[in-house]
C-alpha cells in the first residue's frame, strides 16, 4: 500500500476549508486535515491555502495566527508544495489594492488589482470560463486546453513576471487563472467548485507531490 500524502488545508478563518476538504476526500485521500496548528503544517507533505473573502481580512487573519513565519520557512526554505486558491492565490502576491493597500506574502511578485472592465462585463467575474493553459505540467495534465473552471472574484493577480502565469482566461482583459513558481502554485478559480475539471486539477496537484 502506497503511503497517502498528508495534506493540510490551512484554516485561517475566512476560507471555505470544508469544500476543499470534501473535494480532496472525494478523490480518495484520507490524510486531509483542516488546521492552523504548527505541528500539522510542519508534518504535511503539501499545503493548501484556500480562500473566499476579502484580501485584508485574509492577510490579517494569517498574521493573527502567526502563520507568516512558519509558512515562509516551509514554502521558501523547505520548498514544500503549496496551492493557493482564489484569495489564497492572491495572498501570494506582493500587495493588493482591495480596500486600501495591503501587503501580501510576496512569494510571487505582482499586485492584486481591481477588475476595471468595460460596461458590458459585470464585476465580479462570476461563472465558468474557458481557461487557456500555457503550461500543462504539472497542474493541468488531465485537463485539455479551454477547459471550464468556476471563477468568482472582483480582483485579479497582475504578475510582474509573465513566466509565472501558467494559465489565463479572457474576460475583457487577460485574467490570470493560474500561477506557478517552483513549488508555489496558485489558482484564481475554485477547483473545489469546478466539477470534474477541478477534481482533475486536484489530482494533478497531489500526483505532482508524491
Amino acid at each position: 500500500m502506497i503511503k497517502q500524502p498528508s495534506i493540510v488545508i490551512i484554516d485561517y478563518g475566512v476560507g471555505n476549508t470544508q469544500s476543499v476538504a470534501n473535494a480532496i476526500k472525494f478523490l480518495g485521500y484520507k490524510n486531509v486535515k483542516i488546521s492552523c496548528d504548527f505541528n500539522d503544517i510542519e508534518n504535511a507533505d503539501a499545503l493548501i491555502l484556500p480562500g473566499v473573502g476579502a484580501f485584508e481580512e485574509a492577510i490579517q487573519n494569517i498574521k493573527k495566527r502567526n502563520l507568516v513565519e512558519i509558512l515562509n520557512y516551509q514554502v521558501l526554505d523547505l520548498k514544500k508544495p503549496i496551492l493557493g486558491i482564489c484569495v489564497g492565490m492572491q495572498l501570494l502576491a506582493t500587495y493588493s489594492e482591495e480596500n486600501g493597500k495591503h501587503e501580501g506574502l510576496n512569494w510571487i511578485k505582482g499586485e492584486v488589482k481591481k477588475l476595471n472592465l468595460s460596461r458590458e462585463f459585470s464585476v465580479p467575474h462570476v461563472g465558468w470560463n474557458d481557461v487557456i493553459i500555457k503550461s500543462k505540467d504539472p497542474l493541468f495534465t488531465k485537463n485539455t486546453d479551454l477547459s471550464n473552471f468556476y471563477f468568482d472574484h472582483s480582483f485579479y493577480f497582475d504578475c510582474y513576471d509573465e513566466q509565472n502565469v501558467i494559465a489565463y482566461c479572457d474576460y475583457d482583459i487577460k485574467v490570470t487563472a493560474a500561477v506557478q513558481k517552483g513549488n508555489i502554485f496558485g489558482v484564481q478559480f475554485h477547483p473545489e467548485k469546478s466539477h470534474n475539471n477541478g477534481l482533475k486539477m486536484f489530482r494533478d496537484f497531489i500526483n505532482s507531490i508524491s
Partner: protein
Amino acid sequence: MLKKRIAATVVVRDGIVVQSIGFEKYLPVGKPDIAIEFLNQWGVDEIILIDISATKNNTGPQFDVIREVSKKGFVPLTVGGGVSNIEQIRELMNCGADKISINKAAIHNKALITEAAHIFGNQCVVVSLDAIKIDGKYKVYDYILRKHLDIEVFSFAKEAERLGAGEILINSVDRDGSYLGFDIELMNEICAVVNIPVIAAGGAKNANDFIEVFSKTKVSAASAANFFNFFEHSVNITKAKINKEINIRLETFADYKDAEFDSDIRLKKKADDVLESMLYLKIEKEII
C-alpha cells in the same frame, strides 16, 4: 469566453425538498443530499439551496443539512433562508457554502450586506429579491407576510449593489411554479440598473425558456427548480438543447450533443441503425 450559467434552485421546507407553486402550494420531492448528488452528476453549473421554513420557524440556517449536501456537490453552492447575522454566514461557509443569499435580512438590515461583503468579499453576498407586479410596477414581495412591501424592486437592487452585493437573484413571484417562462421585462429592467451579475428565477418550463432569457436579456445565469426534479438527466439534456444556441458549459460525460429533440424538448429516439451500432459499444468509465 464566460459561459451563461444554468442553476438549479433546491427549495427546502422542513428538511424536505419541495416543489413551490406561486409561493403558496408545496409538493414534496425528496431528500436534499440526493437531489444535490444528482444535479451535480448531471452537470448543473450552480446550486442554490433555499430553506423557506428557516425564517418562518425562526430556526436560522440548518447547518447539518448544508454540511451533508456540500459533500455531494462540486459546483458552487449558494445557501439562503434564515440568514440574519455574520456568525451564521461564517458557519455556513465552514459547512461548505460558497455564497450566501440574503433576502429578508437585506430588507430589514441593510448593514448586513456591507458587513458581509467586507468580511467575506462581495462575491459571497447574493441579494435575493422576490418581485411581484402591482399596478404595473415591480414591488418587493414579503413571503412571510404574503404581501408586497412598499419597496420598488429596481431601486432596491441598485441600493443592494451599492451596499456591496456581488449578485442579484431575482425571482418573479407571478411566474413562480407557473411554467410560463421567465419574466423578460423584469430581467431586462434589473440588468439595466445594476452592473453585477443577475440570476433569473421563476417560471422555467424547459430549455426554450433558458434560450429566450439568455437571448433577450443580459442575465448571467438562469435558474429552474421544479422541472429539474422530475426526469432523469434533466440537466444535461436541457443543457444540450440550450447549447445549440447559447454558449454554456457542457462537459458531462453524457453530453447529448448529437441528440435531437421534439417540439416539447423531449429526446427523440435514435435511428435503429444507430442504436444497433451502440449495442456492443464499450463505454470506458471516466477516471479522474
